[in-house]
């Protein structure tokens, strides 16, 4: 075990995968500047700065991935993905299918989002659900450095385009990371805490809020199970359903806008597949239908906090059918 920040865990994964596979290259907005150690080890051909032009960065990655390379691109902040939507959604996500399977697109898009830096709505917009809704793409968002490293290694090895969301608020939080070769499979959730009374499902920074809520709930005699999705697509439906089948109660939590968010899909999944096991209505906690403000208290208020999660879980546990 070593202790790394999430940012450094990403660097470690890039280093290991670039050593392992010479077709891996990284390019993006300032990546050769900010991760200069990669340039020193792998040279300027495999680690490139680019113009601040997200469309051509993503398009170049799609073209390269479709013809034999395994690019990782850094598009900085998630709202900037709007400039790369055609390349990611129409090209990376669809050209395999539309060509009858002639091409595959092993590429990873790194992007940051979430509360923490007060950067405002054009740098902070948890738009991950857009890509979950787009066929052909995989989507991950780790909550800790170990998963960030393991998921990124798996994403680089995957033959599909992967959107890799980095939570700004977690970027410089240190965590234990297993040394050496350790991948985290895409599409596999982690049960971080076992419990029999209520299931808390989340990803990104709100996983930590769920864990805090579970501590509070334990003090009140409520055993909460906390699931970190890690991957949003593929979604680990089996782990979610197994937990809700056990607890009968579900709170889904994410920082992204609640409306048509990933939580809506999970709530629908549980309603369709485990309705008879539910002892109480499903609760979704998410951000409002509003751009994120820069001001610290407003930015924090956007994000579901531990108190609200604990309160929701407690309400479910005392819920009586009329």
């Amino acid at each position, binding site marked *: 075990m070593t202790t790394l920040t999430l940012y450094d865990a990403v660097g470690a994964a890039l280093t290991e995968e670039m050593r392992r596979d010479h*077709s891996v*290259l990284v390019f993006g907005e300032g990546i050769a500047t900010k991760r200069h150690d990669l340039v020193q080890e792998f040279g300027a*051909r*495999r680690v*490139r700065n*680019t*113009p601040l*032009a997200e*469309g*051509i960065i*993503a*398009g*170049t*990655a*799609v*073209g*390269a*991935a*479709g*013809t*034999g*390379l395994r*690019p990782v691109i850094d598009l900085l902040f998630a709202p900037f993905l709007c400039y790369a939507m*055609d*390349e990611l959604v*129409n*090209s990376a996500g669809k*050209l*395999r*299918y*539309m*060509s*009858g*399977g*002639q*091409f*595959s*697109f*092993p590429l990873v898009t790194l992007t940051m989002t979430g509360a923490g830096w007060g950067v405002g709505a054009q740098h902070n917009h948890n738009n991950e659900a857009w890509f979950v809704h787009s*066929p*052909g793409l*995989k989507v991950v968002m780790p909550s800790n450095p170990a998963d960030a490293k393991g998921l990124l290694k798996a994403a680089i090895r*995957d*033959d*599909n385009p992967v959107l890799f969301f980095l939570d700004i608020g977690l970027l410089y939080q240190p965590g234990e990371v297993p040394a050496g070769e350790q991948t985290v499979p895409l599409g596999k959730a982690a049960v971080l805490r076992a419990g029999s009374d209520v299931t808390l499902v989340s990803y990104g920074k709100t996983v930590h809020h769920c864990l805090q809520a579970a501590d509070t709930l334990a003090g009140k005699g409520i055993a909460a199970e906390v699931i970190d999705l890690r991957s949003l697509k593929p979604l680990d439906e089996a782990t979610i359903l197994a937990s809700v089948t056990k607890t009968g109660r579900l709170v889904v939590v994410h920082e992204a806008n609640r409306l048509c968010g990933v939580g809506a899909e999970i709530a629908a999944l549980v309603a369709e597949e485990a309705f008879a096991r539910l002892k109480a209505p499903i609760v979704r906690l998410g951000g409002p239908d509003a751009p994120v403000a820069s001001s610290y208290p407003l930015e924090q208020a956007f994000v579901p906090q531990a108190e609200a999660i604990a309160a929701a879980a407690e309400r479910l546990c005392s819920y009586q059918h009329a």
Partner: protein
Amino acid sequence: MNPKQHEIDPRQLLQQMLLIRAYEEAIVAGSGTGKIPGTCTSVGQEAAAVGVVNALAGDDLILTNHRSAGHLLARGADPGRLLAEVMGRSDGYCRGHSGSLHISVKELGIVLTSTIVGAELSLAPGVALSQTMLNRPGIVVCFFGDGAACEGSFHESLNLAALWNLPILYVCENNQWQAFVHRREATSRDHIADWAASYGIPARTVDGNDVSAVLAAAQEAAAQVRESGRPYLLENWTYRTRGHFEPDDQAYVDPAEREAWLARDPIAMCRDCLIADGHLTPAQAAALADKVASRIAVAQSFAEASPFPDVSELTRNVYA
């Protein structure tokens, strides 16, 4: 192999243009009766496609767009499998998942075809990056229209290709029309080639209806890209004589402009030139047309006999 070293039989160029014309006319006729879905034809632009594709080597890679029949057929695609694709049949090159608009044929080096105007330009630098990073010999040829040149992706692509020294032959088929809008209404310059200079990219405009001129210009351009490892932009000045998409009454087209271009039909020009030069007799020209017609008839029978994909194909090949 550098095709410049080989003498290309001009009758072969004529035959390819005839094949493209016959193929697209069959689609137009079929779409009139509802038998074949409508397409974006390249009628009138055959010389632009045939001249460039015949200037390429076998290991060069091509990116094309929705108006692709000329590029595909000149590269040797089987018209039967193309028609099957257009008709959504399982023997199509893309198993019927593409239709006419985004046909790729990897085995012929026609890769990553997108119908999003300008997407071919966004993808080309990455394909060229693969060629250079993986030490593959072929250059990358990117076909696009004057409409695509108005997209931001054109400018971003040229900038990056120049900056990163990418071996891309950009081929603009300036067919005067951007869907239903004349290029005069949409483009600040008459010639797309003018824009290349801003990026330090050499460029040239050629008469896109003169197949010999296109071939010679494309051979020179391709050789320059091969030798320098850097991009080049060739603009083929041509005309889309049919509508944007079949059917299209072209009521928005100035008849005088269209007539003037029809009088410069690339196939008639090539045929008359070959006959005048003694390369071809009128009887041989007629025989070529017959040969092409029977090939299209066979292709059509093949496509019609090809089964539709099974419904199980609905979610096949979404993920690798």
